[in-house]
C-alpha cells in the first residue's frame, strides 16, 4: 500500500489548482448567469495540457491515467464546477482510445487536446435514461453507410461539439438485448443533425447541455467505433466505469470547495460577540463535513487507481460515485447553511455550488443505479 501521491501527481494537482484559482473566479458567475460555455478558458486549459491528459502521447495527450484526470477535475470543481466542466470536452475520447480503430484514434483524438475540437457522448433519450437498453435511436445500414434516426436528451456538449459518440440500435433484431447496439461517431455538421441547447438548468450552467435530433443522418460505416458490430453496450458500460470515477471526483471537488469557503467564513463571521468558529455546534459540523470529503476522496482515488492498474471494480466505482455525489450535496448544503443569508444570495458563490453539486447524483448513472450495481454485486441476481 501507499497512500501518498507521487511527486508528479502532486505537481499536476498543484498546477490544476493554480490554473483554476487564477482563471475561474473572475468569470464563473458570469458564465453561470449567461449559461455560456467558457470557450477562452477551454482554449487556455488545452494549451496548458489539462484537457485529455489521459489520451496517449501518440494521439496528442500526456498519456497519464484516470487518477490524474480525476485529480484535475477535483481541483477544477473545487473552484467552480461549471467552468470545471471544460474537462468534459473529451467526453467519448476514452471510448475511442479503448475501442476505436487506429484511423479513428488518429482522426478524432488529436484535435481534442489541441483545442481544435470538442466532443461528447450521446446515450440518454427522452424515454430511456437509467434503462439504457431501451434506447430507440436507430442506425440502419445502407451499403457503406449508416442512416441514423432518433432523438437524444441531456447531452453534454450537444450544441458545441464537433463530433459525438452516439449510442444507437444497430441490430434491433439480435436475440440478446445486449448485442443490439453500436456506438457511432457522428460529426455535427452532417445534414439531418439538429441540436437544441437546453437552458434554465439548475446548475453547471457553463456546461453545455442539449437535446439532439437525427433525421436521416448519413455517416460512413467506418464511423462505427471499433470493428466488431453489436459491441456498443459493453463499450458504454466500460466508459461508465471510467466516467463515474470522474463524476465522483466532481462531487469531492465541489464539496471541498464549499468546505474551504465555509471554514473561511466561520472564522470571520462574528455573532454574539465571537466568531462562529468558536461555537462547538459549528465546529462539529465542519468536522463532519471534512470527514465526509476525506472519505469520498479516498474512495474516488482508490477507484481511479484500480482502473489505471487494470483492475476495474464496478462495485467500488459505484460506491465512490454514490458517496461522492451525496457528499457533494450534503456538504454544499451545510456550507450554505453556515453562510446563512449570505449563502442564499449570489455574492458568496455558495448558492451556485449548492445548485451545481446536485448533478453528480444524477448524471453518469443516477445514484439509484449505483445502488443497483452495488446491490447486484453483493446479492447476485436474487
Amino acid at each position, binding site marked *: *500500500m501507499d497512500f501518498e501521491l507521487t511527486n508528479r501527481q502532486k505537481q499536476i494537482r498543484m498546477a490544476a489548482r493554480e490554473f483554476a484559482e487564477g482563471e475561474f473566479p473572475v468569470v464563473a458567475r458570469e458564465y453561470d448567469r449567461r449559461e455560456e460555455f467558457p470557450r477562452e478558458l477551454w482554449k487556455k486549459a488545452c494549451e496548458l495540457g489539462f484537457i485529455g491528459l489521459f489520451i496517449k502521447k501518440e494521439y496528442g495527450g500526456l498519456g497519464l491515467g484516470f487518477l490524474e484526470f480525476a485529480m484535475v477535475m477535483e481541483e477544477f470543481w473545487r473552484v467552480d464546477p461549471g467552468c470545471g466542466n471544460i474537462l468534459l470536452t473529451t467526453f467519448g475520447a476514452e471510448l475511442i482510445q479503448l475501442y476505436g480503430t487506429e484511423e479513428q484514434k488518429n482522426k478524432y483524438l488529436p484535435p481534442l487536446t489541441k483545442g481544435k475540437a470538442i466532443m461528447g457522448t450521446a446515450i440518454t433519450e427522452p424515454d430511456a435514461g437509467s434503462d439504457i437498453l431501451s434506447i430507440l435511436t436507430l442506425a440502419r445500414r445502407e451499403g457503406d453507410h449508416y442512416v441514423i434516426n432518433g432523438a437524444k436528451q441531456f447531452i453534454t456538449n450537444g450544441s458545441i461539439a464537433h463530433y459525438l459518440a452516439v449510442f444507437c440500435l444497430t441490430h434491433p433484431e439480435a436475440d440478446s438485448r445486449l448485442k443490439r447496439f453500436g456506438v457511432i461517431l457522428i460529426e455535427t455538421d452532417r445534414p439531418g443533425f439538429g441540436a437544441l441547447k437546453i437552458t434554465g438548468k439548475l446548475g453547471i450552467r457553463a456546461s453545455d447541455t442539449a437535446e439532439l435530433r437525427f433525421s436521416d443522418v448519413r455517416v460512413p460505416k467506418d464511423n462505427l467505433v471499433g470493428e466488431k458490430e453489436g459491441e456498443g453496450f459493453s463499450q458504454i458500460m466500460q466508459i461508465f466505469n471510467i466516467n463515474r470515477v470522474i463524476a465522483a471526483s466532481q462531487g469531492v471537488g465541489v464539496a471541498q470547495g464549499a468546505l474551504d469557503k465555509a471554514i473561511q467564513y466561520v472564522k470571520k463571521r462574528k455573532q454574539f460577540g465571537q466568531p462562529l468558529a468558536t461555537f462547538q455546534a459549528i465546529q462539529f459540523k465542519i468536522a463532519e463535513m471534512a470527514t465526509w470529503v476525506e*472519505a469520498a476522496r479516498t474512495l474516488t*482515488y482508490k477507484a481511479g487507481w484500480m482502473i489505471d492498474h487494470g483492475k476495474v471494480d464496478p462495485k467500488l466505482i459505484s460506491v465512490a460515485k454514490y458517496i461522492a455525489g451525496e457528499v457533494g450535496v450534503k456538504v454544499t448544503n451545510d456550507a450554505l447553511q453556515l453562510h446563512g443569508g449570505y449563502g442564499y444570495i449570489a455574492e458568496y458563490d455558495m448558492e451556485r455550488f449548492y445548485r451545481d453539486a446536485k448533478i453528480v447524483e444524477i448524471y453518469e448513472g443516477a445514484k439509484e443505479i449505483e445502488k443497483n450495481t*452495488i446491490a447486484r454485486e453483493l446479492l447476485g441476481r436474487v
Partner: protein
Amino acid sequence: MDFELTDEQKDIQKAAREFAEKTFPEVAEECDLNETFPMELWKKACDLGFVGVFIDEAYGGPGLGFLEHALITEEFSRVDAGCGAILTTTLGSEFILFSGREEQKKKYLPLLPKGEAIMGMAITEPDAGSDVASVSTTARKVKGHYVINGSKIFITNGSIGDYLVVLCVTDEGEKIKSKRLSPILIETNREGFEANKLERKLGMRASDTAEINFSEVKVPLENLVGEVEGEGFYQLMTVFNHTRVAVAISGVGIAQGGLEKAIQYSKQRRQFGSPIGSFQGIQFKLAEMASLIEAARALCHKAAWMVDHGKIDPKLISMAKWFSGEVGVKVIDEVVQIHGGYGYLGEYGIERLYRDAKLVEIVEGTKEIEKVIIARELLGR
C-alpha cells in the same frame, strides 16, 4: 499510490479470518452471557502470533506495523468483537514502545505476544473522561518510591491485567494541567491495588472492564515510563493516535460481519412470495451499508498506513475513528432491522452486534472528542 495490500498483508488477513471463524463462534455467545474473558482463545491467538504484531522483534514481537494490527482487528471483530478484545491485551504497550526505557521494554514487552502477561492502560477516572488532563490519581515520591493514591474507572483488562500503565499526577504544583502527568507502570499484585470487575455492560462483555482503587500503592521510581516526569499527556496523545486506528477498524469489522449476515439472511428469508433481497428497498439499504463500510475501511487503512510511515495525522485518525464508529452503529441498526424479530432475539447473534458496535463511539476518545480534534486542525484555536 498503491491501494492494494501486499501479499504478506493479505496472508495475515486471511490467517486472522480463518482463526476467528474457526474458534470464535463456539465461545462467543457464552463469553457474552457469562461476561468472561476468553482466556483460551487469547492463549491460542498468542501462539499463532496475532497478539502484539506491532511489537519490535527485539522485544518478542514480529515487528509488523499498526496497519497489520488493524487488519487482524478487523477480521476478529468481523466474527465477534467481544472475542476480538483478546487483541487489547497489549493496551499500554505502545507507551512502553514509544517512551519506555530499554530495561522497561525488555521487561514488559516480550511477555505480551507470548501470552505470559496481559496489560492495560488506566487513564479515565470517575470525574475525568474526555477531559483527560483533569485526572487526579496522585503519584507522590516517598523514599525512592512512588506512592499512588486514587481511582480509575472503565479500565480495559483492569481485573485480569498483570500490569497497567497508569496516568498519574506527579507534579501537583504544576499550574498547566497537561504538564502534571506521568505514566507509571503498576503491577497488579502490588499491595493496595484493588480492581472490581464492572458487570452488565451494554456490549463487549467478553472484554474485561474494571474500576480500580489505588491505596498507598508503592512502586519503584524506575516504574515511571521514560526518563522524565510531566510528559504523560503528550505521550498519551501519541498512544491514542495508534490505538484509535485499531478501535476505528473494529467498527468496520463489526459492520462488515453484520452486512454479510444481512446479505445471507435477505437471500433466504421469503416474504410476499420472494426473497426479501429481491425488494429494492432492501437492496438499496444493503448498497448503502456496503458503501459506508468501504469508505470507513479506506479511511482506516490510510490512517494506519500513515502511522506506519511516520506521518501521524491526528485529523485523519480522528476522522477514521468517528466515522467508523458511526458506520458501525448505523450499519448494525440496519442489520437488526433487516432481520426483523429474529434480529431482536438472541438466537441469531444479531442483537449482540447491536450492543457491541456502540462501544466504538465511546472508547478511546468519544466521537465528540474526535470532532473537537478535527475541528481544531481545520479552524485552529
